[in-house]
């Protein structure tokens, strides 16, 4: 277990995305539950994958947000992230 992280939970999020004429979907920004908005700087990888930490499957985007890399899943029609539940937050 990573220090400071109790576990992860499946957190559905609001996403702004671009659907191009080929049908490809590119996420542009994520809106967090508290209203904060995070622009996605770059999509580094895109593949179908199981979300092993929180369960479920979908198109997994490896995205860079503010210099950090994280996974964003498109479950069609919903988007989710593997949100960190910090130690002590139960």
């Amino acid at each position, binding site marked *: 277990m990573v220090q400071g992280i109790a576990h992860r939970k499946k957190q559905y999020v609001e996403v702004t995305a671009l659907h191009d004429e080929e049908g490809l979907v590119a996420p542009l920004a994520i809106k967090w539950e508290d209203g904060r908005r995070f622009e996605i700087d770059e999509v580094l990888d895109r593949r179908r*994958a*199981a979300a*092993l930490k*929180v*369960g*479920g*499957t979908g198109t997994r985007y490896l995205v860079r947000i503010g210099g950090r890399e994280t996974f964003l899943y498109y479950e069609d029609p919903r988007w989710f992230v593997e949100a960190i539940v910090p130690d002590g937050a139960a």
Partner: protein
Amino acid sequence: MDPVLSDRIILHVDMNSFYASVEQAEHPELRGKPVVVGGEEDRRHGIVLTKSIEAKPYGIKTAEALWEARQKCPGLIVLPPHYHLYKRYSKIARAIYYDYTDLVEPFGLDENWLDITSTVQLHGGSALLVAREISERIKAELGVTVSIGIGWDKITAKFGSDYKKPDAITQITRENYREIFWGAPVRDLLYVGRATERKLHAAGIETIGQLAHASDGYLQRTFGKIGFMLRSFARGEDTTTVKSYDARRCDVARQIKSYGNGLTAPHDITCERDAKALIYLLAESVAQRLREGGMRAKTVAIAVRDAEDLTYYTRQMHLGASTAATMVIADSAWQLLVDNQPLDEEHAVRGLAVRVTSLIPSNGNRQLSFFKDHAQEDLDHAIDGLRQRFGNTCIQRGIELTDEALLGLDIKNDNTVHPVGYLHR
């Protein structure tokens, strides 16, 4: 069963403990725990639909009562089924299989046959390589495991996927089949159920290899035609092809085995004219649904219900070539009725049903006939187009106008009696 150059390469991919595995993939906290998916527990007659790999050591069996399962395994996690999830996983898995071949035939939600004979060269040239890649992709993309059998026909492939579970690959080859396939108990062969097994045991046939060597006389006496089929399975001589389905759908839930429609007539049928009107009306709706489903049929069946004692019988005939033409189906159904049922006051009929089976996709290959007029199906398609735009009664057959009670009846939309319900009530 000597090696054959033209051997096919068939894979059978079986998703292990499917419902339970999907639940565990969706809820990681359930991983490693004994889980069963069971139906309708609050009605007190819930049964185990699927058990997780971890539930097996407790001796929990599929189809046993949930209370029994709980007794065997205190703390057992029982979940209600979530079919939309299983369908989704099944669909994604099938999409993965379609990356390797266009011949993917489902056998329920969790099993599929793949014929990779002509595509294996595109994927590294080795069946084992393809099987490994599929297995790894299913694990990475869906978070569940599969067992895969590789054989030269559907039977040996299916046997292979059952041979070792979970998360395993078994290749049955011309070199190892005598040991693995022939040495296995005869119940491990597809379609050998408990009753068949008992009969085979009574004749001293314990293994698949012994069945492969059973005599004509014994098989004919004990099983009839089915006996020869089972022996050909055991000999690895099954020639059944892996059927092609619509790849865009990837959806096994839509797999339909028959189309049918039946009607209890507005009044008892006592003359040929009324019977013919009803048969044509029913055949027309059946053919229309068949075409909408993108299928052709090779068998036409009728069911006839007696007005006196309400018993029914069924008759069926095989067509020379598959068809979706209304006239062919209607004429065949009518022929069946005329051949089997006197139509007069003495033998009043309460209801009739028409059903077509042995379906094949209409976009697949099919045997054409030199003698049949294929314009018939074009005409039907034109009529279907009119009906789609203006309603089913916008154009009717002359014969249907002969019975006033049937006039204006939209049999396709107003009457959707399920054929099974009609035939087996």
